[in-house]
């Protein structure tokens, strides 16, 4: 039997407290969240898992107005992962506030609204719409989009522009702001420090790595956008390294993301310096994975005699 299967779900209800965490003043019943773009608007999973058990989820990226998205094909599976170029198709911030949030009210889980824009103004516009929404705990900024006003430079690829967006959003946001970092940078530490300096309440990392896949017979790219974001287990070592590096230099909380598919993956991120995790691609091929990870973490606490999961945060031994 593998280590993954050895642990049995904990039945001790008191032990649930062992997973409670707090980020930027928000209390999460556990550190298991789901990543933007892999969990729809939350309701899509209501028939599959008990949403009341989830620490929280990040909505699909929201823009001020609905977005049509990229032409297909949008996805392709690669070894240990997949490439996607969805093009941020979404219903728009307004529809999220009026159609989705009221339905989410009955669930005991934290809603994080993921926000993106193609200019500073768009970020602010989306945040202002969402500020009126009832039931949002925090914002997560996707800064991996090209800025149309700056010749298409990706906002999150430069510490300066990333800090600029963070400052602007912090001025209008009525809720804590988590900034989601792009791994497609020379120094993730510099980017993290710039965003922290600009007032971010927390960081989440990593977003997808830019990749490409080619059909050798047609010699065409396998996705219409030519390049796409790589996600899945293949990216986990890169993500763990980046979380570790950032944890050495920032003081704000870090949410680890990248290829997490089981509780052991989650624990790796905690040891590297994260105090919560987001599950992404695994939601696609194992829709109940988030609940399995929560159960796995409870059992791990018991077997390792941890009174609280935070005892292993940033605990790498050398």
């Amino acid at each position, binding site marked *: 039997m593998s280590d993954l299967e050895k642990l049995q779900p904990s039945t001790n209800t008191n032990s649930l407290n062992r997973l409670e965490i707090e980020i930027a003043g928000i209390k999460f019943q556990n550190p298991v969240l789901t990543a933007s773009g892999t969990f729809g608007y939350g309701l*899509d999973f209501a028939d599959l898992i008990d949403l009341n058990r989830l620490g929280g989820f990040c909505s699909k990226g929201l823009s001020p107005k609905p977005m*049509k998205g990229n032409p297909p094909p949008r*996805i392709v*599976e690669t070894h*240990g992962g*997949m490439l*996607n170029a969805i093009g941020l198709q979404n219903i728009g911030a307004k529809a999220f506030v009026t159609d989705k949030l009221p339905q989410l009210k009955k669930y005991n889980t934290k809603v994080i609204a993921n926000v993106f824009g193609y200019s500073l103004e768009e970020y602010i516009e989306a945040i202002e719409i969402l500020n009126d929404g009832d039931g949002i705990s925090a914002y997560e900024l996707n800064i991996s989009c090209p800025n149309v006003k700056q010749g298409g430079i990706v906002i999150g690829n430069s510490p300066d522009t990333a800090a600029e967006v963070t400052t602007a959003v912090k001025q209008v946001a009525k809720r804590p702001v988590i900034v989601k970092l792009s791994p497609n940078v020379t120094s993730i530490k510099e980017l993290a420090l710039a965003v922290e300096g600009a007032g971010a309440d927390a960081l989440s990392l990593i977003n997808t790595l830019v990749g490409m896949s080619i059909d050798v017979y047609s010699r065409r790219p396998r996705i219409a956008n030519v390049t796409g974001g790589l996600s899945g287990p293949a990216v986990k070592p890169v993500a763990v390294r980046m979380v570790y590096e950032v944890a050495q230099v920032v003081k704000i909380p870090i949410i680890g993301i990248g290829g997490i598919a089981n509780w052991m993956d989650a624990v790796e991120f905690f040891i590297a310096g994260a105090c919560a995790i987001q599950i992404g691609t695994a939601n696609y091929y194992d829709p109940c994975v988030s609940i399995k990870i929560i159960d796995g973490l409870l059992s791990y606490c018991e077997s390792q005699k941890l009174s609280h999961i935070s005892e292993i945060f940033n605990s790498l031994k050398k």
Partner: protein
Amino acid sequence: MKETIARVKEIKHFGRSYCQIKLVIDEELKIEPGQFAMLKPVGAFEPLLRRAMAFYQVSTIKNQTFVDFIFNILGRGTQVLAQMHVGDKVEFLGPLGKNFSVLPAKTTQNAIIVAGGVGTPAVLMLAQELCKEKIETTIFLGARSEADLVGMEDFSQLPAKLFIATDDGSVGDKGFVTNSLENFLKQTLEQNKPFNSVIYTCGPEIMMETTAKIGLKYNLKTYASLEARMACGFGVCVGCVVEIESKQDSSYQRVCVEGPVFDASEVIW
């Protein structure tokens, strides 16, 4: 939609590179023609994603559901499924997607099915339901050659007219199945006007596109069951979209939720 573990009841290989598997699920599931499931052997690390498979046949006996799938072994996903043995466990999410509806054909009392290649299994349940409803049904099946025709023994048992076309002429008409369809429509219209029917199609994209055009030409409502690469199968990845025309603009709709069955006249091919 149910997330569960199914077991392999039967598995057989036939033709050029085809595989038929029968799975058993320990509960009763209501499955409609044209719906699909996402499948992957339990414990398989590669490939990562489950594969979308249309239901070929379904039966329910004593709190158990038996489901059959027929697929062409093409890539890593279908390879691992084809390598399973009786008793092996399969991750199963389903039934998924919008089904073929026989309602439009109830109005016309006449239906035409045009299927090709591995799209053929997806229409057997539809054909069975049309026949059960006593709707006059004509089925056109196309394949590259005789060795690529799937499900013949089941289709030929139905009280429906059956036309076969193969690219190499090894059985039935030589040529595309859409040529056989058009010839049939021409003759039928010459003999008995007015003629009204509903066309259902599933198969290679070019075949469905041609069928959609023929449908428009003869003013026959046409429904196409589309195929697309899917990561999740239940709407969250938004990876499997197809462009659909609407009154003002076009939009990208998910094959897994808004489809796989679409009004073919609205699909931007």
